């Protein structure tokens, strides 16, 4: 455990040393959040959306989405692609720890830095300004657990895509696809309750909505059956872990270290 914490710390420290990046990140995330809130304010007050959702609901969705998205941010595919692309994977593989643990722990450190220094402040301001209600303890705990499982699902998807780099050397397209699928099927840009039924049904068959959207519903105490959500998340994790093992067994034999 202490070893894993060292990797988390390494990921965190690698980000915290760049002060101006931290500052500009804070400015960008504040602008993004408040522009999104303003956009939804306009949409909800217009006749475009006929819905009983209030602005507070939408702000809660946006704030929790921003927090979860930054906590579950994962570029395992990019990290693996870069390690394989420049050959530095040979250094990672000389350590007595699995490659996956190194990548995930460093990513947690990076995400913690991002949440603490970039997203937490504007999120807290929005919560206070718009009077967002926090869920009760039981929903709060279910939300936290579900959010954690959501992060695992995203990591697994990214990691499996990243391993494609063992076969193709590069996976520059992976983050493009994951980000697109997250927005469309994961409902991170527009809540699923505004989707047409057929598209919402498609989303039910894919893992992306279980990354941030379903945990947010639990936070809003709007999930019909939070335990069922968590059960489905666990099933997805099981399936993705199985797929990851299949890919890894083939990938590690395929490794070519670039640049000698």
């Amino acid at each position, binding site marked *: 455990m202490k070893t894993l914490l060292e990797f988390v710390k390494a990921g965190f*420290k690698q980000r915290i040393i760049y002060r101006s990046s931290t500052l500009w990140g804070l400015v960008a995330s504040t602008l993004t959040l408040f522009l999104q809130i303003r956009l939804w304010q306009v949409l909800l007050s217009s006749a475009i959306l006929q819905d009983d959702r209030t602005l507070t609901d939408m702000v809660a969705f946006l704030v929790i989405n921003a927090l979860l998205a930054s906590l579950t941010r994962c570029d395992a595919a990019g990290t693996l692609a870069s390690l394989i692309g420049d050959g*530095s994977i040979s250094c990672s*593989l000389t350590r007595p720890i699995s490659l996956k643990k190194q990548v995930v722990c460093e990513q947690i450190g990076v995400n913690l830095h991002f949440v603490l220094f970039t997203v937490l402040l504007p999120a807290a301001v929005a919560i206070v300004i718009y009077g967002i209600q926090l869920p009760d303890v039981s929903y709060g705990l279910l939300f936290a657990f579900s959010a954690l499982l959501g992060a695992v699902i995203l990591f697994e998807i990214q990691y499996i895509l990243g391993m494609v780099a063992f076969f193709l050397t590069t996976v520059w397209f992976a983050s493009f696809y994951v980000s697109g699928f997250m927005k469309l099927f994961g409902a991170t840009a527009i809540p699923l309750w505004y989707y047409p039924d057929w598209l919402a049904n498609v989303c039910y068959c894919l893992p992306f909505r279980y990354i941030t959207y379903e945990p947010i519903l639990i936070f809003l105490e709007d999930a019909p059956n939070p335990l069922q959500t968590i059960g489905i998340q666990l099933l997805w994790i099981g399936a993705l872990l199985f797929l990851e093992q299949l890919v890894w067994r083939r990938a590690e034999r395929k490794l070519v270290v670039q640049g000698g």
Partner: protein
Amino acid sequence: MVQIIAENLVKEYQVPDRDPGLRGAVKALFHPRYRGITAIDHINFSIEKGEIVGYIGPNGAGKSTTLKMLSGILYPTAGSVTVNGLVPYRDRKRNARQIGVVFGNRSQLYWDLPVIDSYQLNRRLYDIPDAIYRENLAYFTEIFDLGDLLNQPVRLLSLGQKMRATIAGAMLHSPEILFLDEPTIGLDVTSKLKIRDFIRQINQKSGTTVILTSHDMGDIESLCERIILIDEGKKKYDGPVLEFENTFGGNYSISFKAVSARPSQFPEGLTLREDNAPYYVVTGNEKQVRLSDAISVINQLGIEELEMKNQTLEEIINEYFG
């Protein structure tokens, strides 16, 4: 005690075969072509505990590929390899605990963090007991002059400083075996000497087995009694450096200034270069005319100055590979 064994080791790759230019790149997109490369071709060797072995050959010979298979990074296509009884690619993590690995063109240290942070991570990663960590850190700090560097981010270090810090990091857990892939590449003479001293000391102090690849024959001559020479994935020579020099080398040259007339009457096997009279150069080979005999012959001519030069290992290897 035999510590490292490679038997019929083979590593094959498939590499893209593209025509040059933009046209070639577009063509490869629709009709990709691949060709097989045999990086390692049925190599056999065994290495005893405590040996320092120079693993040498031209670029692309397969040196780094072999070290990566010994480290558990790459799977062999065929054959077997064991390191201290472990099969590296099957038991990568356990193998990683007993070896230290340094790749000269890459660093294990975190680029943005102070050197000491990477060492702290290694301390946890390898479960290094506090006393051993402190002792090793003190030893490496002294031998590599790391004192002022420990708190500096790695990106601010010079190439030589970074390499010293990297080697120290790879040795903090006191591994029994050390794989060094071009550890002196691009370094100045002082840094090279420090690294050579360190390898010698660690080998004498702890009996660490070392496999060293280097293009600097100074590294090999000063550290290794044995070399394994490979070319195009095949083993060409495996044995003592001296024997290699005697078998494939032995060329010498003697420069001298003749006092009187043009020298003549040289025994067969010696060649005279006389384009700069009265300065002459005689070249020969130990296997045909011994150096001492050649000097005796030249001494009889009446000479003023004499300088002799034996063929270096580097020259022998350059000649060997044409």
